[in-house]
């Protein structure tokens, strides 16, 4: 019985990853400091590093496209600041 329930709920749960990164020409103060530190630590082959945010989101939904819509809305409303950031959504299988 319990197994059955779990199965059901698994069916309805979709998992997405969202990455939020600074737009190309926007200053990334964190990335700058991290880069210098890594080079000081001996990573001479490091060319560039940019830092962003990462989210793993699970939602209840049957319909994948609807789910994706939901995620998109979350990004626009809260997770990303579209003035300076871009975001990418991916489904995690």
């Amino acid at each position, binding site marked *: 019985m319990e197994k059955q329930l779990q199965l059901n709920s698994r069916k309805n749960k979709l998992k997405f990853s969202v990455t939020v990164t600074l737009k190309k020409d926007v200053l990334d*103060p*964190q990335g700058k*400091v*991290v880069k210098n*530190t890594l080079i*000081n630590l001996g990573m001479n082959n490091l060319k560039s590093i940019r830092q962003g945010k990462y989210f793993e989101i699970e939602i209840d939904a049957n319909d994948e496209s609807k789910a994706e819509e939901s995620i998109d809305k979350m990004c626009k409303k809260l997770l990303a600041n579209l003035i300076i950031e871009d975001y990418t959504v991916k489904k995690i299988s």
Partner: protein
Amino acid sequence: MNSSVIVFPGSNCDRDIAVALEKVQFKNKMVWHKDTELPKSDLIVIPGGFSYGDYLRSGAIAGKSTIISEVIKAANKGCLILGICNGFQILTETGLLKGVLLRNKNLRFINKNVNIKVINNNSKFLKNYKKDQILEMNIAHNEGNYFTSSDHLKELNDKNLIAFKYCRSDGDVNSISNPNGSIENIAGIFNSNKNILGMMPHPERMIDNLISNTDGINLFTSLIK
């Protein structure tokens, strides 16, 4: 007695702590993070502030600096090390103290006076306080939410390594008096040898009645012989 205050780019309580140390007659030296040698010191202080902007994780980058390896050597030889606020975060990043400081549970920077209770005064740092004494101290941090593994938490309790806990003005330790979500209201801890103290509250801000109170001064008088 000689003290050294380590200055990282972005440290900003370095002057404040130097004032406190000199007030109790420490001969203090400021040590720049790029220095390769520590002056002879009985006490090393890692001050508060935003070393390297607190970028990546607070304390992470300072934890990799040149001078820190010297601090670690000194610590292992038994030198007294005090880390305040960002200094506490740096000590956890270097592994000299266990656990981590996560973001405050309300996700906001918090600056206010809180009450803390001396849990264990039996150390070189706190001998001039009484056990269970209640102090009023200023906190100012974004990441003061102490977290550690259950094993380590047990060790902290079993070996009496908790220095301070956040409490109410009457001494009650409860969730309402916990400003940042720290596990068991922990505000400061010792390492197992008790030669290292890390704490989030700022004792150096509590040494002058004109500014605040003098609840912090005994920490410094405890340390001076």
